């Protein structure tokens, strides 16, 4: 018996005597990224903000923008817009080369944009951002003219977006669309090195980089020699890894942890309010109880968005009211007057619509229950909070926490009553994606008009706004669009999206890319 005890003690001793060795070097930055299931690092194809988190550091765009949206020369030193607004002529830098040694030139710009509109590429984001693109004309080696079919008011912003990054045409030829996504080649400050599926992506600094936009602090190659993205889905593990010093920067840190770091000062934090579509829910107008606009309005009124947001985010995010977040250009403040928290009003609307309170607290009409099927892909806690509020006025909300594959199936089958979405975008032009009737999903055709709302007037407004000539016209059209959407109560904004980042306090130069979601790592350095 004693022998066994000794063995037990021995093993415990071996376990405890091994101390944990931390080998993180300040200039080898490890970034904890939230999603493990990255699929492509091709800027032309992706529509995922999580993939763009890496892409933004490997590619440059023709026009560069800081986190405020201010515009600076990027790969193009200057640009001219023709008076009819159809032609954009770019003068390109002549000292830039891709990671594979290919010279950056007008042909590369043409190859990139042409391939985006090629249906074979299967672009998810870029093809929409490129708008009414017609063609690119190579005027000389370092002058390229991009031509649009019609006036495209969002063009300048579009050229700053990560999706329109210029990719290496030789790499494209060599690797094909699929291969390129697995081993991307750009002109950015970091080069792709290695990708272990579901685990990590490793980048190394581009030693030849000498074309940083002027709003950056540094010049020449980045001080970060190795940049590793650890893909840690689990929030608490991500935070624990940050606190243990295993990673230097972590994204999507829970608000409670942000609050703790802010008060202790152990870690630095930075929060970005993301522009684009807030965290919101589409209400399906073609099936179920939300076909009735008054039921939709009642649903809106049942939610106390301000309290809900402060309860869940502890002050790190603001409630949202309109179809686009308040930080997006052309935001209309009139949104905030719609649908205040008013459970009595909601009850009255439902009563009027014929939904009478049943004995089990769920309303009924003609023997049918006021049931809402709510597949929830993002933020289950928020979905539960919505469920809890709506429940109080007599909605029976069935939340199912789903993965993307299941959500896709439901979208194709039109088998949902509401769906949540959030979208990072720099321009209100994004509204055409979820609200134009041509974007109603069909079996096999994945689109984003999940409210399935078709209205010719709204379609016209969206098209007009896209090619608005002046900022005033643009603002006015987008105001009308937002008003239309709010009147119809098809899109329930809940809260602004926030990117909460915490990092090692020895570091400085941690900054957001435009849109306040992705992090530009070029400037990161030791204090």
């Amino acid at each position, binding site marked *: 018996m004693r022998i066994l005890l000794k063995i037990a003690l021995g093993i415990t001793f071996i376990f405890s005597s091994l101390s944990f060795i931390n080998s993180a070097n300040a200039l080898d930055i490890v970034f904890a990224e939230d999603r493990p299931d990255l699929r492509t690092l091709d800027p032309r194809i992706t529509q995922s903000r999580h993939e763009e988190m890496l892409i933004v550091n490997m590619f440059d765009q023709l026009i560069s923008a800081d986190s405020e949206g201010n515009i600076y020369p990027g790969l193009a030193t200057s640009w001219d817009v023709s008076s009819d607004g159809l032609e954009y002529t770019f003068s390109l830098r002549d000292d830039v080369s891709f990671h594979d040694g290919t010279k950056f030139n007008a042909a590369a710009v043409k190859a990139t944009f042409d391939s985006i509109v090629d249906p074979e590429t299967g672009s998810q984001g870029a093809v929409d951002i490129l708008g009414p693109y017609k063609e690119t004309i190579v005027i000389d080696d370092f002058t390229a003219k991009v031509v649009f079919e019609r006036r495209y008011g969002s063009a300048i912003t579009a050229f700053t977006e990560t999706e329109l990054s210029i990719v290496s045409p030789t790499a494209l030829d060599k690797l094909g669309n699929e291969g390129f996504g697995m081993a991307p080649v750009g002109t950015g400050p970091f080069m792709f090195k290695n990708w272990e599926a579901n685990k990590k992506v490793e980048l190394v600094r581009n030693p030849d980089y000498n074309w940083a936009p002027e709003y950056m602090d540094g010049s020449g190659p980045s001080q970060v020699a190795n940049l590793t993205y650890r893909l840690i889905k689990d929030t608490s593990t991500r935070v624990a890894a940050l606190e243990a010093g295993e990673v230097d920067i972590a994204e999507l840190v829970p608000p409670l942890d942000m609050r703790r770091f802010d008060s202790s000062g152990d870690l630095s934090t930075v929060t970005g309010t993301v522009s684009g579509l807030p965290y919101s829910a589409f209400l399906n107008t073609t099936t179920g109880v939300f076909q009735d606009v008054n039921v939709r309005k009642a649903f809106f009124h049942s939610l106390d968005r301000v309290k809900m947001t402060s309860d869940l985010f502890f002050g790190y995010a603001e409630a949202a009211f309109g179809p686009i977040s308040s930080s997006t250009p052309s935001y209309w403040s009139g949104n905030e007057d719609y649908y205040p928290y008013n459970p009595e009003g909601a009850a009255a609307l439902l009563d009027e619509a014929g939904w009478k309170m049943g004995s089990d607290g769920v309303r009924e009409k003609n023997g049918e229950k006021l049931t809402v099927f709510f597949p929830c892909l993002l933020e289950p*806690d928020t979905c539960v909070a919505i469920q809890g509020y709506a*429940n109080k006025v007599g909605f029976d909300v069935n939340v199912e926490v789903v993965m993307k594959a299941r959500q896709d199936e439901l979208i194709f089958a039109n088998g949902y009553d509401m769906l949540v979405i959030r979208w990072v975008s720099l321009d209100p032009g994004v509204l055409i994606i979820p609200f134009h009737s041509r974007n109603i999903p069909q079996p096999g055709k994945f689109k984003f008009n999940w409210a399935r709302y078709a209205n010719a007037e709204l379609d016209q407004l969206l098209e007009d706004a896209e090619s608005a000539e002046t900022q005033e016209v643009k603002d006015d059209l987008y105001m009308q669009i937002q008003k239309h959407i709010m009147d119809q109560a098809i899109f329930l904004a809940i809260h602004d999206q926030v990117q909460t980042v915490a990092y090692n306090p020895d570091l400085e130069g941690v900054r957001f890319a435009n849109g306040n979601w992705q992090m530009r790592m070029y400037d990161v350095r030791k204090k």
Partner: protein
Amino acid sequence: MKNFSIILKRFLLNKGSAFGGIFLLIIIIGAIFAPLIAPYNWNEVDTGPRLAPPSWDFLFGTDIHGRDVFSRIVYGARYSLSVGVISVLFGIIAGSIFGITIAYIGGRVDIIGSRIIDVMFGFPSFLLSLLVVAIIGVGLWNVVFAVGLASIPHFARIIRSAALQVKEQPYIEACVNMGFGKIRIMFNHILPNIFPIIIVIATMDLGGAIISIASLSFLGLGAQPPEPEWGAMLSSGREYMRYAPWTMIYPGLFLFLTVMSVNLLGDRLSIALDARQSVDKGKV
């Protein structure tokens, strides 16, 4: 029955089964009378402050939505117990039908049936449950079905060998002699005679079924929010572990104690009914 009182006595005199029995009884009563016992509505948000620590008002604290954890656990007992029982019932009924049928008909049917059982044993049962969920989709009842389905080979194998023994008894021969139909013999004569074994293996499997279902709910495949199933509660309390450990500790504790009680009962039941031997034989 004369034996019954002996079994009961043997059963109650044991501390373990007494503890298990009492705890289970408390849980069952709690589940039945949940509306009377729970101080708050399990699904009402903002019944109290968010993530409040345990206090007299909120015995086990509150969760991120300000819901009373104690009330949710009390209601959760309804889910956690009934899903386990239903899943085991499903498995044992299907397993009994399958096992008894192939054992009684015998010959080629038995060989093929046993082979099917063997093949299903080639899949670890949790893997089988996951596969079934992959096909029929997530949801509490789907998971109950999946776990029950995955337990069929195990049940069928034991019941088959028990039925084989009973089949050889002269009273079954007597039934044939009297011209009884196959189904009557299988389910009116063989089944009652292997019933004690069925009860024991069902009880012994119940704890495992409860854990499996809770595990699948924890993985997000089973109960959906806001259902207060204990595994799902643990899963949603996980994110706030550091700031509100009570949202994770108490549901898990109740799950653990319930499963332990069931296991204690299963152990004692098998000893009390002395069916262990036949069960062990069935496994070989």
